[in-house]
């Protein structure tokens, strides 16, 4: 069952953690083994205690863990007992390209034990040619150099969080230029207390495989960054949907949302649909997201956003958002501002 009703979240700060192989949301083939090795190396360099990957692999084989995109309650409980780890780092590769190099990653630390919860989440994305600078001195042509930079930023963020020097989640740079085209906020929505939210997988109407998961993950990250919501670990949500065979092909129904909210004991359910997600050339994205309330069975909030990376860019590409995941993150943050949940940067 979900950890939504738990009070203070366990914060894995000092003990060892396990690093799951990266989940591939890039829609293309990625060098999973190489990325995992580099990621673990970068984490160790930052002083993060990572357990032997062979031990984690053996644990995954023993418990038949097939999805590395999340941590369910059973895996969280068993990993604490058998591996003695206090957290599992779940990594998602949202964009990977060799030439010109591009990498977008999201990582989150999920606490182990009986109540898995997201302890920390952050994301970073870069393309090699996004800041060429004077005489193209800032151009990155080596994908390994780019990997080191992206992973270094994420590892620094995790390290700072574990040292108590950084928040659980960082808000993306937003700005009015990525504001949603339309938004609705019900009067029933109050901000009396932090409310628990289950983020359902977004329906994907694009040709880009994994676009729904990328946008849902960015939305989750920004929800966490607001500090007003306790978001249920997506692995727990996925497990419950599979266990009760809940399929939402045509979008979420009120009954479906109510069932999910009851199973996970959350106040709210967030669902959405991604209509556009383009990474070639100037990135662009379009999605609609809605927040359903368990108590009233009503839509409490809905926002429809459509933007592209060069919105509001006029001179020398200043302010250009180079990747679709980074654009989605900014759009998610701007959309959440219409919810009245302004994220603190």
């Amino acid at each position, binding site marked *: 069952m979900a950890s939504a009703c738990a009070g203070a979240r366990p914060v894995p700060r000092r003990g060892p953690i396990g690093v799951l192989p990266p989940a591939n949301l890039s829609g293309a083939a990625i060098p999973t083994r190489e990325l995992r090795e580099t990621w673990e190396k970068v984490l160790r360099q930052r002083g993060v205690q990572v357990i032997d990957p062979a031990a984690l692999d053996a644990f995954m084989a023993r418990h038949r863990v097939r999805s590395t995109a999340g941590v369910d309650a059973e895996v969280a409980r068993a990993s604490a007992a058998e591996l003695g780890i206090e957290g599992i780092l779940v990594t998602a590769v949202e964009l990977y390209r060799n030439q010109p190099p591009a990498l977008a990653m999201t990582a989150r630390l999920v606490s182990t034990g009986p109540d898995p919860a997201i302890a920390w989440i952050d994301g970073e994305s870069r393309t090699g040619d996004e800041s060429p600078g004077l005489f193209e001195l800032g151009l990155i042509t080596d994908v390994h150099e780019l990997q080191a930079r992206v992973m270094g930023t994420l590892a620094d963020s995790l390290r700072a969080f574990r040292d108590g020097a950084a928040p659980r989640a960082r808000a993306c740079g937003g700005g009015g230029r990525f504001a949603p*085209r*339309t*938004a*609705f906020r019900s009067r029933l929505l109050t901000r009396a207390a932090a409310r628990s939210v289950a983020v359902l997988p977004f329906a994907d*109407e694009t040709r880009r495989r994994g676009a729904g998961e990328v946008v849902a993950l960015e939305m989750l990250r920004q929800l966490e960054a607001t500090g007003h919501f306790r978001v249920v670990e997506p692995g727990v949500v996925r497990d419950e949907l599979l266990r009760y065979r809940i399929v*939402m092909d*045509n*979008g*979420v*129904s*009120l*009954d*479906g949302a109510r069932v999910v909210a009851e199973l996970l004991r959350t106040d709210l359910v967030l*669902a959405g*649909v991604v*209509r556009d997600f383009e990474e070639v050339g100037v990135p662009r994205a*379009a999605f*609609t997201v*809605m927040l*359903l309330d368990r108590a009233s069975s*009503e*839509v409490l909030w*809905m926002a*429809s956003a*459509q933007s592209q990376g060069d919105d509001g860019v006029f001179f020398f590409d200043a302010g250009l958002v180079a990747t679709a995941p980074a654009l989605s993150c900014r759009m998610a943050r701007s959309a959440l501002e219409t919810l009245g949940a302004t994220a603190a940067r």
Partner: protein
Amino acid sequence: MNAPRPGTMLGAALALWGCASAPGHKFHDKRMDFSSIKTVAVLPFINLSRDNQAAERVRDVFANFLLATGSIYVLPQGEVARGISRAGVANAAAPSKEEAVALGKALAADALITGTVREYGEVRSGTAVGSAVSLSLEMFETTTGAVVWSASSTKGGIGFAERLFGGGGAPMNVITEDACRDLLNKLFH
């Protein structure tokens, strides 16, 4: 024979210009109390355009705009799909009177909105290119299954600027939003 006066000529020209700008039609059932409509289900639209996703895109924009007005509660699309399945409606885009009543009960909706996307996408005229959307909507009241409101709107196309400077016109989403805004104006006024 008397020559037509300049005022008459101007009036005729304005009337002709008005016809050319295609404001679309509008029907309001005068017996209907529209303030009693609190919950609406926007059903899947009929797609007559070449773009396979046009109907879903336009429906999404319209439903969001309607909800964003804050005057009417719009049911989520997943809920509408469940209601259609539960009420056993054969063609949800064009329900019969009985089906509209049954669907209204299944969804607890005061009204249903159906639509037809007649045109969506690029239009060409000679070397000029522009984007256009044309759609019509109907609202069914779910107590009797009668049509109480109907309107259509066409936006975009090839105008003076497109002919003179080219450029392809405004993006599809902007034009779709214009058309939906126009239809909402026709619903509320």
